[in-house]
């Protein structure tokens, strides 16, 4: 029986509409139902305890809670000595996102515990989330896109204040207070954290790339110099070492280690991606060709071909295997060998020595990794965040010791000898003074968005690999890199 009457037509249409409309409250209910479930994990103290208590904090850094407990609450931060009153209490919560330290003890034995204690003292619910350094850009981008997330983000080796200027708070008050307390920073800190006249980030530490080499291999091949001072030294020693079965190695690939190493080489040959303004691509130069030629010689005569596929852990493992005679890497590589209870590792560690970054014809320049903290614009606890960062950087020594000398200070004062951990160690004391070699990505220009983009698009490392390992001509390799760089820098300008 065909319902063809007007009534059923109306009813049909009504039903359709009703069906669609009924879904709206249904969806809304779903959203609403989800919300209370989500507010639960957001704040209770127990959630804060979990991630940061991977090992119970042996809090040597406990500030005497008794002092100033009564005094401070009402004082506005600006008026206290140095601008930041460490006895203030706050409220609410503070969440921090930063990398998992390569020296795990820094996180487990120091930072997480310290943060928790700080929170207890200042009545703030502090939560620290560690993620792999490679994941920070993605996570940071997501939070910035959503305009919500952690209050403080610790950026590693890229990103941060200059890239996300609009999304981070002005922390000049914190930094100026720190400068008043700890003295001036090395220039690199400004390059990284200052945008215009405002500090947008609080410098934490930098990670230098010194030479790590095998003294016993030197003895074996008759390298009487006993150390490596110039890139040329490396080539000569490396050639001998490779012939003896211990090639040298540094990542000839796109990984972060590679980005740092080949920039260091380039700069010390006087070759640069841009000029001082950071807008004009100056890669095509005789100095670049010199650097490329050197890299090719180094690769063919002294290195193992394994370097072509190395990620950041490649050179660490190479050194730890006993095969590598030299790598260019932060000291985490030795520390992990030293920490391995295995007798072979212990023996190996004894033979590994350190040297300052290699010198080239035009100077001794090194590109380090680093950590800087920014306070994100969406935070609801800006004052607490600022106090946290101030207090975190007020105590240099404890953190430095916890990192086993890995977290090199941006502060000039702390870089002077004698330095804890380093100066008393015959091997490690060579690192003192390394801050003089530090230059940041984008050098000689500023650390811009474009410079970071050129880094992440592997412009420099591709050029070196193309010439040294893939037998492209120097002209072709340089032309390819220039083309890619110009596309990046042109966009940035426009």
């Amino acid at each position: 029986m065909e319902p063809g009457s007007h009534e059923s037509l109306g009813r049909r249409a009504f039903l359709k509409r009703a069906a669609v409309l009924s879904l709206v409250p249904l969806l809304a209910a779903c959203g609403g139902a989800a919300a209370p479930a989500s507010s639960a994990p957001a704040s209770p103290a127990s959630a804060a305890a979990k991630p940061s208590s991977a090992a119970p904090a042996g809090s040597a850094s406990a500030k005497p809670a008794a002092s100033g407990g009564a005094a401070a609450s009402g004082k506005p931060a600006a008026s206290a000595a140095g601008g930041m009153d460490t006895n203030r209490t706050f409220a609410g919560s503070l969440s921090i996102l930063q990398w998992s330290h390569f020296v795990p003890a820094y996180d487990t034995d120091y930072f997480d515990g310290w943060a928790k204690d700080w929170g207890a003292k200042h009545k703030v619910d502090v939560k620290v989330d560690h993620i792999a350094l490679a994941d920070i850009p993605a996570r940071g981008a997501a939070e910035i896109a959503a305009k919500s997330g952690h209050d403080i983000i610790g950026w590693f080796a890229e990103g941060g204040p200059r890239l996300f200027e609009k999304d981070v708070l002005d922390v000049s008050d914190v930094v100026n207070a720190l400068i008043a307390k700890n003295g001036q920073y090395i220039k690199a800190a400004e390059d990284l954290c200052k945008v215009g006249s405002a500090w947008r980030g609080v410098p934490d530490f930098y990670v230098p790339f010194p030479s790590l080499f095998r003294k016993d291999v030197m003895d074996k091949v008759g390298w009487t110099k006993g150390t490596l001072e110039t890139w040329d030294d490396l080539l000569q020693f490396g050639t001998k070492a490779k012939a003896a079965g211990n090639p040298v190695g540094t990542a000839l690939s796109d990984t972060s280690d590679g980005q740092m190493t080949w920039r260091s080489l380039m700069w010390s040959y006087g070759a640069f991606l841009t000029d001082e303004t950071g807008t004009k691509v100056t890669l095509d130069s005789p100095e670049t060709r010199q650097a490329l030629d050197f890299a090719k010689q180094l690769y063919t005569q002294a290195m193992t071909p394994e370097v072509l596929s190395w990620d950041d852990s490649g050179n660490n493992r190479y050194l730890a295997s006993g095969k590598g005679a030299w790598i260019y890497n932060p000291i985490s590589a030795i520390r992990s060998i030293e920490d391995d209870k295995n007798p072979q590792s212990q023996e190996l560690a004894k033979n590994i020595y350190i040297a300052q970054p290699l010198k080239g014809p035009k100077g001794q320049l090194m590109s380090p990794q680093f950590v800087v903290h920014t306070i994100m614009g969406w935070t609801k606890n800006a004052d607490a965040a600022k106090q946290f960062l101030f207090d975190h950087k007020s105590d240099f020594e404890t953190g430095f010791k916890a990192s086993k000398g890995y977290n090199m200070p941006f502060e000039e004062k702390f870089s002077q000898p004698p330095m804890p951990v380093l100066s008393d160690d015959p091997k490690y004391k060579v690192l003192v003074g390394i801050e003089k070699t530090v230059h940041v990505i984008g050098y000689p220009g500023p650390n811009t968005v474009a410079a970071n983009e050129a880094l992440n698009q592997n412009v420099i490392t591709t050029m070196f690999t193309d010439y040294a390992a893939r037998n492209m001509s120097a002209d072709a390799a340089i032309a390819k890199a220039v083309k890619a760089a110009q596309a990046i820098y042109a966009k940035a300008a426009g």
Partner: protein
Amino acid sequence: MSTAVAPIPMAAATAEVQRSHRRLRRRHFTASALTYIGIGIFVIFAVFPVYWMFITTFKQNADLYNLDGNPFWFNMPATWDNVNLLLHKTNFIRWCINTLEIAVLVVAITLLVAIPAGYAFARLRFRGSNTLGIGIFLTYLVPPTLLFLPLSRVVTALHLQDTIWSLVVIYPTFTIPFCTWLLMGFFKSVPKEIEEAARVDGCGRGLAVMRVVLPISLPGIFSVVIFAFTLAMQDFVYALTFISPSDQKPVTLGVVSDLIRGDEFFWGSLMAGALIVAIPVTIAYNFFLDHFVQGITGGAIK
């Protein structure tokens, strides 16, 4: 004359029968041999890395990094250390529970949404069905590598960030389209006559579907469950984007993020994590596959 001739054909016949029997047996033997060889090759291809992962789980680190050792066996004594680290020093158990919760919910949502939709596209005619069907498919052409950014805005607006609910809501976006289409395919291959026969017998459409179509499409539904479950269990990017507290992480994210510290890969524990997750899932899938092959219609092909 006939007696002289008769035995010969018989003998010849017997011989012929015997020869054909032998040929048959040889064919059977060749067929089985080929089957075993074929399966063997596939099994080795699939399993060789898994075997290596298994050995690595129980190897000491020094053994693993020893260039001279045999990677397929233990050169130093095996150890439970890696497994212990995984189970006790990380939130592994918690991560597994999170993943299970997420996956079950996502599969449920997917089935609830995709079965009706798949049936509608397969059997019903309505205006715009083609366009809508294609439209749903198009969601896959939107690249996930960028989707996660705007989705993070959505998740934040719903206040779901840093909880597993964000994933429960987001994952169906990539399970529903494919499962709808897959089910559409399976429903289409159910002969219309069977369904119509049920309706003629007096079943309404709904009952016909439930009584007849769904049971026949069970293999399809099981594939959908397997597929949706796998997708929900294995995602990494969305989990990374929306969840940072360690105890809220699903297992894939947790294992990858907490067991790789820049330089140092905790290989033994990583592999242990992978296998502890994969093996129960494999057993479950295998169980489902049994139902495929036996089938309600006894459709195993001889």
